[in-house]
């Protein structure tokens, strides 16, 4: 009998600082797994499983501070990040939301080694960005909204140049450039110079450029800013499809709540250089306790006293033939509310529900 145990996740990035590989961990040839003498073996297996189950973060930020000085003499210091702590797990799309000036782009720039923090520790793919910046840059890439490139070079020339910056040579570079052009449907304008491209095409070029080195982490800084809704939707779909296909990690900053809700597995909300909360979009909605809204149009006489004590109702209000309930979950509380209205002797004509959207959460956090 032979047993193999495979761990498909890279357990310790710091130790290997390599891409996740499938590791043949242990092989026993007719070895009795059950028995008192095998405590050491079981302990070893358990340890590996525990490490494998807990995903190692690909981005780890601890107490990150950053300030900018303005003016040469007696300049003022503007604190942009104030002690950021954040872990981002592998293979996820992680969103960073926040109002203007919250520090989103600054934080992303630190993660992508474009800025150095004043204080704190930042590890990307197990490497310290202060000491191992070169190694980090080899394995990440970034794409920003309002993308700019060398304006007199064509799409293909720009991609060729950036491919060369990643050390891609000859046939390999051509293949990757061709692939990026095909992936972002840039074939029709590959010989067009950058300054003659539309905003949408410029954005696609930025995304194509960011895929050239097959990054393990892709940083997207407001990737759909300034684009019309149709192009934005298309780019969002492309981002999601590529992420699903390639399985890399995306760290995204955006002002667009629909984008965050559509793309992100987890979201951090940043305000005035501090992270206020981290979680899934649903977690954020729940935590903010705005609740879902159930609107009922009815016939009959209803008094507010009759609405007291309904489970899960955070708030309620009555007006002519219409009542509105703010509940923790519309799905959970609907039957109890309808039952309560029936007991109060009114005829329900219409029921509408609306969930809290991320935009409301954003506004609530921005206050």
């Amino acid at each position: 009998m032979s047993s193999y145990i495979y761990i498909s996740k890279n357990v310790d990035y710091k130790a290997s600082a390599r891409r996740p590989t499938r590791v043949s961990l242990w092989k026993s040839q007719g070895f009795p797994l059950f028995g008192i003498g095998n405590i050491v073996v079981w302990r070893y297996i358990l340890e590996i499983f525990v490490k494998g189950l807990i995903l190692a973060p690909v981005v780890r930020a601890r107490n990150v501070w950053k300030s900018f000085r303005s003016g040469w003499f007696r300049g003022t210091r503007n604190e942009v990040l104030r002690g950021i702590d954040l872990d981002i797990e592998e293979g996820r799309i992680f969103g960073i939301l926040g109002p203007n000036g919250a520090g989103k782009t600054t934080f992303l720039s630190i993660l992508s080694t474009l800025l150095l923090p004043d204080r704190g520790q930042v590890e990307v793919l197990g490497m310290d960005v202060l000491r191992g910046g070169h190694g980090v840059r080899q394995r990440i890439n970034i794409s920003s909204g309002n993308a700019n490139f060398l304006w007199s070079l064509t799409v293909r020339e720009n991609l060729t140049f950036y491919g060369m910056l990643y050390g891609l040579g000859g046939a390999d570079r051509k293949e990757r450039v061709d692939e990026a052009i095909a992936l972002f449907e840039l074939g029709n304008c590959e010989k067009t110079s950058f300054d003659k491209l539309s905003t949408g095409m410029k954005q696609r070029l930025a995304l194509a450029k960011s895929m050239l080195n097959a990054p393990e982490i892709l940083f997207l800084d407001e990737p759909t800013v300034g684009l019309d809704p149709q192009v934005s939707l298309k780019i969002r779909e492309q981002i999601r499809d590529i992420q699903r296909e390639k399985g890399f990690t995306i760290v995204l900053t955006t002002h667009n709540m629909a984008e965050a809700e559509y793309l992100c597995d987890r979201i951090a909300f940043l305000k005035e250089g501090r992270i206020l909360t981290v979680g899934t979009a649903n977690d954020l909605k729940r935590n903010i306790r705005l609740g879902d809204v159930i609107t009922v149009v009815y016939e009959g006489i209803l008094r507010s006293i009759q609405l007291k004590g309904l489970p899960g109702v955070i708030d309620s209000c009555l007006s002519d033939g219409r009542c509105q309930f703010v509940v923790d979950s519309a799905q959970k509380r609907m039957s109890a509310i309808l039952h309560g209205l029936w007991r109060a002797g009114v005829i329900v004509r219409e029921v509408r529900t609306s969930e809290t959207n991320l935009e409301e959460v954003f506004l609530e956090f921005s206050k």
Partner: protein
Amino acid sequence: MNFRSEWTKVLAFVFKNVMITKRNVFSLFEILFWPTVGLLSVGLLATYLRLGPDMTAFILIGVISMSVVHVCQIDIAYVLLYDVWGKCIKHEFIAPVNSVHLILGSWLTGICRSSVIFVLLAFFSSHAFHFDFFKPGVGALGLFLLGLFLTAALVGITVCILVLVFGHKAEVAAWSLVSLMLLICGIYYPISMLPAPVMAVAKIIPLTYFLEYFRSFYGFPSDPNGFLAKGYGFSFLYLGLAWIGLELVIRNAKRTGILIKLSE
């Protein structure tokens, strides 16, 4: 370290400068028009003033050297300036390249461009003013040109440093810094004519020694080997310092956020 991959990164900057130069019709002015106009006007002035062959040689060596240094250094300056003008400088600093790739790639382009200019100007000066640039021999000429290219690298790196510290405001250094050399290093006159403090500065600039070295083959009294040694000595010393300076400035740019500001 994969040598092939590192060499590709160097060639990336050659590719960038060559492609942009190819697209920019005004770059022809830099390569052909201004150096030729400069040489012809100075050469004609020398003819009008009935200067002897030695004095004509003195001035023509200065003019041609100036053009070679100017064109070579501007390619190094352009490697950052193109990105500053295109507001895309951050992309290069996010890629796994360092200052060696950046400077070496653009320097190689500069050497190619300025070599073309040198050949062109040497041809003009030979036909129009009977000046033989090859008189000292290929070896001496090679050492002289290498000295000019090293000087250009120094000026170019200094421009890059200024751009990374002061941003757009330092663009003008790409054209003005080299003109300072015209004044100090004895392009049109010997440095002995300069006031003592300026002469002291001229004596620590490598270009001064490379010019004196090459002029020694045209009958100007000097110590060629001593000049060459001093020229290269200063060049390598300053290159080392400039490199350290550039690295420090890049690090500082990552602290101050100027790379992001220049990309907005």
